[in-house]
Structures are given as structure tokens and as C-alpha cells.
């Protein structure tokens, strides 16, 4: 434990002549000493490499010190809404680091990688059962990448029917920003549909937007306010009657585990965030994985390569089977394989019993926190929520304490902050998602602190406004960072010299 902010860059620890690793050099009979010098010099690097020169103990201490200024799920409660920060089981890490997986070159022949292909195939089938879909690809690398792939599936489907004028995607105004951004990358135009005051999609407004230019409607269910879109059967029928497909953004799948399946709700294409619902670690922003599922009839549009079973042997097929229909290729190989292994380990560990309970416990935890704080934090939509819910700041805003201040004050108490200022439907959004792996005592501790902060905001608002006080660093100057961006050490040095 070292609470002091370390603050040095590895470059600042560099001393000429130090090394943190060596490679064995062998005398190769009949070869000149330096093969690089035989390469024409105009093809070789001349600029010096701006890398640090440090010994191994320095590297280890540097990064270990830095890690102590970081907060993870293992450090403490992480109620970051929309991110499903559940516990990351340790057996998953062991599985992903088994030499029989990590030392496998992706281009080895199929016969020498049957175990890898079987893991991929098994997870595909399990996700089909959980999603209510006919087929899955595990190739997309992240949720956003899955969305993009899913929209490409939808475009490939319309193209196959020569239905070329469908170039519009409808997304709710409460959607994650990723939805419209993915649509734009996939070459589609975005039209927003309004939400009703109760937070769900305005079905009449949607009906008015549906015509023969609509390729897809993207929805999150439960939506970003944590509410189940109970009109979904009607919406699905309307979308299908208009000739469009219905896309399920799986960001909020967790509370649906053991309750209902997107396929049964009428969704045609979906993605799943393995790093949310299936417990793989977030790694400070990645790697994740974003498998995409499709209902029967859309399988042929999925990306290559794909894993196919034949006589109990598994094969990795690339472009031969479905060259004309497949959307093409979105990844170098079969996705983030070692992330897929972790998700598979999680599903096998939970098994049928665990999977049937996960969603319900996540929902219970969220409602428990909501009901315990609603007298002090403004609850704009008063309904039973699912895995998460949104407060619109404090009930008593008289002292001007904002959601940002509350979030920062939580850091002082050893909690990660909830998601703030999203969704955009409310000015002071504070979005809380506890997940099912938190105990009642943990939630009670959080509730008590949230109540203390609400009281402090009235009695001693300056303390909240200037928070955090007890973290390795204080609030950074974001404006200065954006006005004059300093994004490398080299630039920092050059600026200092000026």
C-alpha cells in the first residue's frame, strides 16, 4: 500500500545504458555478424527510438506504484451505470492463460486447434440459447464493434433482397451515443425517436417514422433509464410490417438473464458485451468482446471466418462457403479468443441455476438502492427498475451541489462514482448499477454514504463542491488539457524547453 501519488513517467526514470531484458545471441555458422547491416540503409530506421532505458526492478516498482493509484472492481464497489461492473472470477483468468490456448498461432491448421474451435463453438451455442437466436459470431472485438457488425448484417440482408433504398436507422433519444455513431460508420442515416415522459419509446412517434427507407430500429431493453420497454411486441410487429429489422443493443442484457430472451421479444439481430453480462474484466477500457447473434434466416450474412461442425470435427471456414452473402470480414481472426474463453468459463461455472438467478439478483440490488435513497435524490421516473436506474441529482438543490460534486465526494469514501450526465434526458443524471455480485452489506454501506453526502450538501456544501479531498490526485483541469493538448512525453519535453 502506497497512498502517495507517484507521478513519475517511465521516461523520467531512464538512465543511459540500463536494460530490463536481454535476448540470447547465438553464433550462426557461416553468417555475418549483423544481418541488418546487409539491408540497404535507406530502408532502415535512422531516428533514435524514444524509449526509456530502465532495469527490471525499476519497471516493476514503477508500474506497481501506478497500480496503487487505480481503482478496480477488486478494490471496491463500482456502481458505474450501463457498464455492469460485476465481479471478475479468478478461475476465468487461469483458464485464459493456459499454455494450450495462449501459445496457439491463429493460422495453424484446423486439426491442431480442435480445442480452440470447440471452445468457440460451445460458446456460440450457449449464447444462442441465452439470446434466443439461431446463430452467433464471436468475431467482433467490442460492443461498438458488434453494433457495427450487426448493422452490416442488416445491410447485407436488405442488399440480398435488392432493397437498396433502406438507408435509415431509427434510435431512441435515450440511446447510447454509440448507436448513432455505429450507424454512421455503417453508412446509414440516423433518425431519433422521442421517449415518453415515463422513459419508454413513444410508439406513435415511432409509427410515424417507419417507412420503406428504414433499414433498422435499434433498441436497448431494458433501456438506458433501466426500464423494460413493455411495448416491445407491438414495436417488433410494426418494424417487421415496415420491412425493417429490429436490433437489440445488448449493453443492458444482464437483468434479462433467466427472465426473457431478445429473440423471443422479436429482435432479429443482437450483440452481447461479454465484458458486461459475462464477467470478463474491463481492463481499463478493453479488451472486451461483442458477439453478434441473428435469428433464423439471417445466418448467411454473418462475417467470416466462421466455425463449422462436421462429423464431430470442427473447421474454420473463411470465404468459400458464403462469399456472396456474408457481409465480409470485420476482424483478423475469430475475435478476442482469450476473452471468449473467460466468458465460457463463467457460463459453465454459473450453469443453469446461476444463470437463472443472475438477472433477478441484479434487479433486486438496483431496486434496493433506489428505494433506499429516493427521499434524498430526485427520482424522475417512479417505476420498478431493472438492473439500473437514474436519479436527477439531489432533491434539495438549494446549495448548488451538482451530480459531479456528489460523484467526486463518493471517491473520498472509497467508492467508484456512478455514471454521470448520461442519459441526456435529465440535466443531473446519476446512473447507478450495482450488479448481482454485491452483498446487502456493501449496498447498505454505499446507501449510508450517499445519505451522508446528501446531508453534507446542505450543511456543508463547500466540502462536497471541492471533493475529492482524500484521493491520490485532486480534480484535474480538463479545459487546459483540451485547449493545449499535450499527448506525448516528447511533446511535454519540447514544450518545457520553450
Amino acid at each position, binding site marked *: 500500500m502506497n497512498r502517495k501519488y507517484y507521478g513519475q513517467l517511465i521516461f523520467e526514470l531512464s538512465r543511459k545504458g540500463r536494460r530490463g531484458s536481454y535476448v540470447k545471441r547465438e553464433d550462426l555458422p557461416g553468417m555475418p555478424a549483423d544481418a541488418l547491416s546487409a539491408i540497404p540503409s535507406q530502408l532502415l530506421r535512422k531516428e533514435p527510438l524514444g524509449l526509456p532505458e530502465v532495469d527490471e526492478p525499476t519497471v516493476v516498482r514503477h508500474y506497481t506504484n501506478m497500480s496503487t493509484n487505480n481503482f478496480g472492481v477488486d478494490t471496491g464497489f463500482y456502481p458505474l451505470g450501463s457498464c455492469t461492473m460485476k465481479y471478475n472470477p479468478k478461475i476465468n483468468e487461469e483458464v485464459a492463460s493456459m499454455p494450450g490456448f495462449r501459445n496457439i498461432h491463429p493460422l495453424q491448421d484446423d486439426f491442431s486447434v480442435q480445442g480452440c474451435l470447440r471452445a468457440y463453438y460451445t460458446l456460440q451455442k450457449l449464447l444462442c440459447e441465452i439470446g434466443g437466436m439461431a446463430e452467433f459470431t464471436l468475431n467482433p472485438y467490442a460492443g461498438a464493434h458488434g453494433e457495427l457488425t450487426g448493422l452490416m448484417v442488416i445491410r447485407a440482408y436488405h442488399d440480398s433482397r435488392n432493397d437498396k433504398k433502406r438507408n435509415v436507422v431509427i434510435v431512441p433519444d435515450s440511446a447510447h451515443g454509440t448507436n448513432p455513431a455505429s450507424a454512421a460508420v455503417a453508412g446509414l442515416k440516423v433518425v431519433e425517436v422521442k421517449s415518453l415522459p415515463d422513459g419508454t419509446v413513444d410508439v406513435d412517434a415511432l409509427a410515424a417514422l417507419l417507412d420503406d427507407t428504414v433499414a433498422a430500429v435499434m433498441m436497448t431493453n431494458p433501456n438506458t433509464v433501466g426500464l423494460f420497454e413493455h411495448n416491445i411486441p407491438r414495436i417488433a410487429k410494426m418494424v417487421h410490417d415496415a420491412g425493417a429489422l429490429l436490433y437489440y443493443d445488448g449493453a443492458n442484457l444482464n437483468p434479462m438473464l433467466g427472465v426473457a430472451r431478445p429473440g423471443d421479444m422479436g429482435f432479429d439481430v443482437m450483440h452481447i458485451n461479454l465484458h458486461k453480462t459475462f464477467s470478463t474484466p474491463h481492463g481499463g477500457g478493453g479488451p472486451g468482446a461483442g458477439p453478434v447473434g441473428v435469428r433464423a434466416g439471417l445466418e448467411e450474412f454473418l462475417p467470416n471466418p466462421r466455425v463449422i461442425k462436421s462429423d464431430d470435427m470442427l473447421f474454420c471456414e473463411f470465404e468459400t462457403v458464403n462469399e456472396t452473402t456474408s457481409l465480409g470480414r470485420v476482424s483478423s481472426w475469430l475475435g478476442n479468443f482469450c476473452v471468449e474463453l473467460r466468458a465460457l468459463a463463467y457460463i459453465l461455472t454459473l450453469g443453469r441455476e446461476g444463470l437463472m438467478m443472475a438477472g433477478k439478483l441484479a434487479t433486486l440490488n438496483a431496486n434496493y438502492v433506489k428505494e433506499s435513497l429516493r427521499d434524498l435524490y430526485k427520482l424522475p421516473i417512479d417505476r420498478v427498475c431493472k438492473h439500473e436506474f437514474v436519479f436527477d441529482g439531489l432533491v434539495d438543490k438549494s446549495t448548488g451541489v451538482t451530480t459531479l460534486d456528489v460523484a467526486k465526494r463518493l471517491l473520498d469514501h472509497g467508492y467508484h462514482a456512478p455514471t454521470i*450526465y448520461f442519459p441526456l434526458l435529465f440535466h443531473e443524471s446519476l446512473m447507478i448499477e450495482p450488479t448481482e455480485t454485491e452483498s446487502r452489506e456493501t449496498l447498505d454501506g454505499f446507501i449510508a454514504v450517499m445519505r451522508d453526502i446528501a446531508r453534507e450538501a446542505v450543511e456543508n456544501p463547500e466540502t462536497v463542491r471541492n471533493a475529492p479531498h482524500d484521493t491520490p490526485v485532486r480534480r484535474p483541469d*480538463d*479545459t487546459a*488539457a*483540451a*485547449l493545449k493538448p499535450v499527448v506525448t512525453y516528447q511533446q511535454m519535453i519540447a514544450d518545457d524547453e520553450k
Partner: protein
Amino acid sequence: MYYFTETHEYVNVEGNVGYIGITEYAQNELGNVVYVDMPETGDDVIAGEDFGAVESVKAASDLISPVSGAVIEVNEHLIDNPRLINEDAMKNWIIKVELTNPEELGDLMSKEEYDTKFKI
């Protein structure tokens, strides 16, 4: 003579030349401006279409041109000092345009109309 859009741009017209910027109301909503994305001299702008954006730390607003024309100058002071917009949005225009269709001015709001609609 100033004309205004619903999307908070103004064009200050002098003869055949228009100075386009964002309104006081807009800069106030955005907060500290950290970057202005501007077109290049010689580019064409079209009324109702975006020609750039104004960014603050946690928001961004597209710039929608009030008029059509050719860009004859961009305000280079904004490259190093985008905060000029916060200091005086009405004086620190973003681009200078030679109008190709002055009749478009008829579709815009007068100062009185804009001020009534968007009171700070």
C-alpha cells in the same frame, strides 16, 4: 446588419460580405470553448448546412451556415485562442463569406426576433 438562425449562428452583413459567428447565447450554453473547427479559405458554404464545429470540454456544437457563399477568410486568432468566443462572441466572428445569394437573408431572424426568442 446582424441576422440570426434558430441554431444560434449570426451573420453580420456588410455589403456583399458576411461575418459568421455564434451568438452570446450559444457561447454561454457551451461553456469554455477549447477548439473551433473551421473550413479553409476558398471552400463553399451552403445555407442550412454545417461548415465546422465549436467544441468545449464536454460538448460540441455544429456550425450551420446562415447563408451560402465562398469563404474568403477564417478568423485565425481563434486557432490559438478559441476563448475569444467566450470573451465576445458577437465581435469574434469565425468565417468571412462572400454571399452568393443575399435573398437568403430574408429567411433569417432579426436581432429583436432572436432576442425575444432566446433570452439569456
